[in-house]
């Protein structure tokens, strides 16, 4: 076998407004290799991948494919050379069916609806994906959207597939399935780059790992030459003390009065008969599989979606409430941190400050006519410091921030409302190790200060580390409840599946 790399990136620099997102990075990818890319939020991982995929062009340095210098003007040039990218934020067209999305850009080859659907079905079957090709892409769960994007790359006969944080929205089983698939693609000679903030994934599934920091390539080597600690050291340049966030010594459920009580909530096919209570000063974790109705019940509580007619009751501090608009819930001190930041989390054209400021405005600007711009700015600066949000320019649109920093903006936007009850829906999705620790501290301190916290997470260690009490959701009901002392990963998983 030749050892000629498929991809070589030489001294690549990409600057935005004079500031380097990538600063002279060198990178190579061997045929049939699984290569993990790790680094803090904003380190330049997505930027490096977009250079390879032809989404952006390097300011300096160049790219070689099969040893030959290329200059891609657009992603389709890269895909002509067999390079496909699955983006961090999904790029499917929501109004098209799964099948149409899969053959998108190659419609000429499959022109009838039936041919399109059959071609798509074949790929999906070969990849062992359980997705209905005639479903609309917009109605898919995050995991399925991901699968469709990979199927699209396979249909395009990609030799190089780049996956930007593919596992961020997947459950553990789906993640295993993805890595199985990647191994089988590897056997057929496809080279893959994947980005992940879960360092174990890089250590367990990659052949080689590259670490980026502040736009520089710090280290590349075989996965076996790294440990979790050494990866973190390379990523942040120092050791990180990872410990579970502090919580009050004893379980101080000061009052027996729940801040929130929901009873028999029913909503469409997703939520049927959910009942639970949330107490002030506690973090209540809700574990469960994707599709178990957790986000949906949160949106019912917020008044964002309508429950069924006579679909249950909700009490806040013992007072029955029935919100018809989230504005009412926010006014009463409930805040929701969305799981899909691009879909319903942030305002993409606006900067960090304005995003955070709008969250504050929703709660505290209700009676004012003039926008309190100095207040909003000061507040946003404060939150930027507290969550160490990294951005390039003062008014850089949030769309251009790195994924992790976008997540911090969305969290800050909700917390600026000083809520009494916060619902965190997958709060650490796509966030780097250092920031995960910070966000967990914040979640914990909100509860320690007396607010009620609901933590919806598919990542069990997170639920186990943070929660005082754990509910397990299963197909739209609460299947089990554990105190912190009784909860183990096995018990939770068992309750979630059986």
């Amino acid at each position, binding site marked *: 076998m030749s050892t000629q790399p498929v991809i070589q990136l030489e001294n690549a620099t990409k600057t935005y407004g004079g500031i380097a997102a990538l600063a002279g990075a060198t990178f190579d990818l061997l045929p049939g290799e699984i290569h993990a890319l790790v680094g803090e939020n904003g380190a330049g991982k997505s930027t490096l991948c*977009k250079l390879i995929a032809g*989404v952006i062009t390097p300011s300096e340095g160049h790219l070689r494919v099969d040893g030959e210098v290329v200059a891609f003007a*657009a*992603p389709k040039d890269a895909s002509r050379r067999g390079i496909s990218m699955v*983006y961090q*934020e999904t*790029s499917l*067209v*929501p*109004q098209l069916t799964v099948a149409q999305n899969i053959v998108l850009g190659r419609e000429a080859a499959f022109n009838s609806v039936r041919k399109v659907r059959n071609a798509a079905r074949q790929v999906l079957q070969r990849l062992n994906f359980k997705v209905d090709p005639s479903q609309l892409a917009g109605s898919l769960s995050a995991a399925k959207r991901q699968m469709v994007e990979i199927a699209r790359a396979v249909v395009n006969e990609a030799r190089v597939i780049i996956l930007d944080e593919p596992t961020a929205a997947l459950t553990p089983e789906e993640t295993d399935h993805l890595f199985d698939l990647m191994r089988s693609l590897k056997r057929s000679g496809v080279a893959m780059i994947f980005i992940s903030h879960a360092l174990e994934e890089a250590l367990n599934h990659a052949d080689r790992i590259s670490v980026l920091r502040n736009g520089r390539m710090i280290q590349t080597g075989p996965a076996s030459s790294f440990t979790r600690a050494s990866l973190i050291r390379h990523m942040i340049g120092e050791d990180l003390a990872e410990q579970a966030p502090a919580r009050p010594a004893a379980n101080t459920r000061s009052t027996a009065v729940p801040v929130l009580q929901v009873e028999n909530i029913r909503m469409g096919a997703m939520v049927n008969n959910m009942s639970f209570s949330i107490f002030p000063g506690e973090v209540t974790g809700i574990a469960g599989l994707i599709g178990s109705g957790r986000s949906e019940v949160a*949106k019912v509580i*917020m008044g964002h979606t309508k429950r069924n007619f006579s679909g249950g009751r909700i009490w806040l501090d013992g007072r029955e409430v029935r919100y018809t*608009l*989230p*504005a009412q*819930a*926010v*006014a009463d001190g409930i*805040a929701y941190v*969305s799981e899909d930041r691009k*879909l*319903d*989390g*942030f*305002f*993409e*054209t*606006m*900067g960090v*400050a*304005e995003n955070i*400021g*709008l*969250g504050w*405005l*929703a709660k505290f600007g*209700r009676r*004012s*006519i*003039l*926008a309190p*711009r*100095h207040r*909003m*700015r000061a507040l*946003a*600066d404060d939150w*930027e*410091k507290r969550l160490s*949000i*990294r*951005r390039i320019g*003062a*008014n850089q*649109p949030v*769309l*251009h921030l790195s994924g992790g920093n976008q997540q911090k903006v969305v969290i800050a*936007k*909700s917390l600026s*409302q000083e809520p009494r009850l916060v619902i965190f829906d997958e709060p650490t999705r796509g966030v780097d190790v250092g920031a995960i620790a910070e966000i967990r501290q914040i979640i914990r301190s909100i509860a320690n200060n007396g607010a009620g916290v609901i933590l919806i997470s598919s990542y069990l260690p997170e639920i186990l580390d943070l929660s005082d009490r754990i509910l397990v959701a299963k197909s739209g009901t609460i299947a089990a409840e554990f105190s912190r002392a009784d909860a183990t990963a096995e018990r939770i998983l068992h309750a979630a599946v059986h």
Partner: protein
Amino acid sequence: MSADSAAAPLTLPNQGSGRRNMLERVVAAATFLLIVAFAATIDGFATTGNLGIILINSASLTVLSCGMAVVIISRGLDLSLIAQMVAGATIFGMLISGGVAAPLALLAAYLSMVAIGALNAWLIAYVEIPSMLATLASSMFIVGLFRFAVLRGEYLLLLPKSDPTVAFFAGRLLPFLPVPVALMLGTLMATWFLLNRTVAGRIIYAMGDNFQAARLSGLSVRVTAIVVYVFAAFTAITAGLIMASASGAVDFRTVTNGTLLFEVILVVVLGGIPLRGGRGGLRNIIVGVALIAVLRNGMTLMNVTTQTQDMLKGLILLAAIITDNYLNPRDAETDTAGDL
């Protein structure tokens, strides 16, 4: 990393991710070239007298465009704008012809249009009917109602030109400032203020940028919808008063033949405000109006028929969009569905 912004108040760049800025620039450049070309070829184009005519003639279009722009930035569409314009002017005209005192007639006209704006907003924000359908329905209803109940099947209502209020709207506020131009400037300023300085303005951009996020963060999207459509109604009746006083008649055919509505949408889109909302501002309105006003004036001076003018406007819209797409190819990652 954020030390640079310590004391500065929030500045509000709503020009989006750069894509739309290009269209605005292309159109501004085209307008400039057009002015140069007209000035060189048409006698009497580059005179102060003609400048005044351009301003007066584009006053009502500008006022309407302000209303439409605000609606579109909030990711809505108001197809009843022109119907509101003629209906408001009709109410005013009927009342003063019937001997009602002018201030009272004005008040009644404004209040009834506010009611229609609020009704539109209620249909859109509370009943949750898509804005295009809700305003289409209200437009048809308004025209039908007024032609049936008020005009008894007629198209035209003549205004008493000698009436001091009508004369005022057609006259001058200051020796160098015609009333229509003053109203146009006032509306532009009000639009700027609404969009940039008020809480409602911030929410309008948020709704256009990402409606689900705006709703879920607890922004008062319903109240803001009322502000948006009532503001649009205000611009409609203001434009109606300008137009009716200048021509001495209210003509319902401006609604039924549709060209004015298309022209207003054309101004907004050409100025660089995308129909998906959340982007653009006052500058874009001015750029869009400038192109259309100069074009209209130049072609009229050249005796080009209105049919040819319409054809040209259609072609210009296509040319502008194609140029913009060519200068800014969509990219797979950041492109938002529903983009124009």
